[in-house]
């Protein structure tokens, strides 16, 4: 059986070993789907106001854009990736995945009502557990939190973070405050106490600037500039000493690319050598902290010519940093087979399964 990403090859032809897909998405089909998982007051609020759900969802992925979902993964009359049967048919079976990490982001941050936003996050998490995790043992999942409200986020981690198949807390990459700042430390404390991963994922409040310098005019700009937001967040996490305060903290960078990491690393290491005394808790070169605490999904790969990509892999300096992902149902046209071929053989199994298995304790 082949899948669109395999371009006519069978999954076993591409890779005969185990596969863990570290980023597959679940889409909430409609706000009404969450009502059974919410107190009635919030359903009433929505009906009163004619509120159909977070605006961020529509803004981030224009429904008609071809990159929103591969044509093969669309079905008439339903939202792509909105139930577990679709996921089985499109990913779990053809890819024969051992485990998949389910991410339902749903832009819960775009709701500013402090109680309603927390209720919305609770309903998304309970919906994910009941409608997805309980229906397929191959799935583990991320939970969402009202990230701009650390106290509420901690309460939600305390409520669902002990679920044996919740492995990650999703934090949208765009935020009003950089995530290294100490106001977020209670979230990391709650997260690391439960051995959960921080999933730094594409997205954020729709009124938040999608680039680090202001509002772009076009989607093309927004998509291309998003890597800057990832860079700003990981720089903040490192400079503020998050990994000295929480030595067990692990971060998955999802949909952020990784080819920009070596250039960032050279610059950060140089700045650290000269300005270490300003951030004296940073006890080793930032690129070493990246290798110890960060993992990156390979969707998108942002592949250039293969020989150049091979250099980038070498410059990153570790075989333990990349994780396979389909980013289902979104459309990337990366050639996974060509990518695997340019990796050192010892790295292929790590990328396809072992690194994610270690990160998420699967």
């Amino acid at each position: 059986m082949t899948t669109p990403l395999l371009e006519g090859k069978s999954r076993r032809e591409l890779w005969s070993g185990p596969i863990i897909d570290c980023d597959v998405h679940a889409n909430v089909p409609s706000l009404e789907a969450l009502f059974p998982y919410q107190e009635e007051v919030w359903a009433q609020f929505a009906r009163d106001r004619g509120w159909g759900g977070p605006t961020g969802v529509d803004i981030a992925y224009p429904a008609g854009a071809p990159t929103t979902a591969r044509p093969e993964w669309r079905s008439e009359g339903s939202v792509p990736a909105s139930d577990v049967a679709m996921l089985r048919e499109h990913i779990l079976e053809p890819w024969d995945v051992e485990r998949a990490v389910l991410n339902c982001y749903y832009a819960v941050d775009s709701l500013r009502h402090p109680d309603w936003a927390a209720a919305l996050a609770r309903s998304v998490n309970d919906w994910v557990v009941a409608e997805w995790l309980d229906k397929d043992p191959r799935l583990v999942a991320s939970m969402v939190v009202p990230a701009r409200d650390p106290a509420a986020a901690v309460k939600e981690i305390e409520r669902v973070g002990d679920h044996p198949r919740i492995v990650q807390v999703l934090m949208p990459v765009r935020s009003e405050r950089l995530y290294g700042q100490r106001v977020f430390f209670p979230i990391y404390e709650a997260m690391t106490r439960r051995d959960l991963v921080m999933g730094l994922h594409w997205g954020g409040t729709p009124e938040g600037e999608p680039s680090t310098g202001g509002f772009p005019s076009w989607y093309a700009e927004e998509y291309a500039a998003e890597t800057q937001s990832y860079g700003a967040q990981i720089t903040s996490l490192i400079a503020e000493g998050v990994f000295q305060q929480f030595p067990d903290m692990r971060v998955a960078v999802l949909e952020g690319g990784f080819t920009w990491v070596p250039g960032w690393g050279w610059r950060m290491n140089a700045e650290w050598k000269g300005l270490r005394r300003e951030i004296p808790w940073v006890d080793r070169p930032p690129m070493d902290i990246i290798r110890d605490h960060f993992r990156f999904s390979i969707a998108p790969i942002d592949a250039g010519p293969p020989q150049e990509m091979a250099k980038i892999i070498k410059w990153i300096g570790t075989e333990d940093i990349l994780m396979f992902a389909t980013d289902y149902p979104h459309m990337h046209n990366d050639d996974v087979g060509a990518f695997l071929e340019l990796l050192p053989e010892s790295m292929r199994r790590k990328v396809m399964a072992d690194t994610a298995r270690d990160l998420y304790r699967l």
Partner: protein
Amino acid sequence: MEARKKTAREVERHIVARVGDVPEGEHRIFSVAGREIGIFNVRGEYFALRNRCPHLGGPLCEGEVLGLVYSSKPGDVRFDGSKRLITCPWHGWEFDVKTGQSYFNPRLKARRYTVETSVGEASRERQEAVPENPDELEPGPYKAEVLQVKEEGEYLVVAMPKSTAGRERGAS
């Protein structure tokens, strides 16, 4: 480095300055036998460093001298004023004034000379050991070049290996 001990080289002594020329807490750069040497007065003790950063050859002694800042975790900022660190003006890297020891990059250390002081006929020599580091801070392997300084009567005297201009840098 013990393993790289050089064969005995002739040491030359140069009168560099009057004692009062380098006030306490400050440092001055002097040209000595074609080499630029920074003399530091740390609470009445004198130390000398070659004005050359082992990183990329920057004018090391033109930088600021700062105390040591160290930490165990965010929000814990500790200060050790007994350490005096020269910061290279090119890249800000820190070297212990007394020993030439680098602090920041685990791969870098500057070469040092030892400074002596002597008063009249009586000469005291002082060989600075690398001071103990706070537990949290690892010294880097680089060392700035440190020279011996003596205080003889009212003069500061630097002892340094005889110039070997034209000598090839030996392959190590």
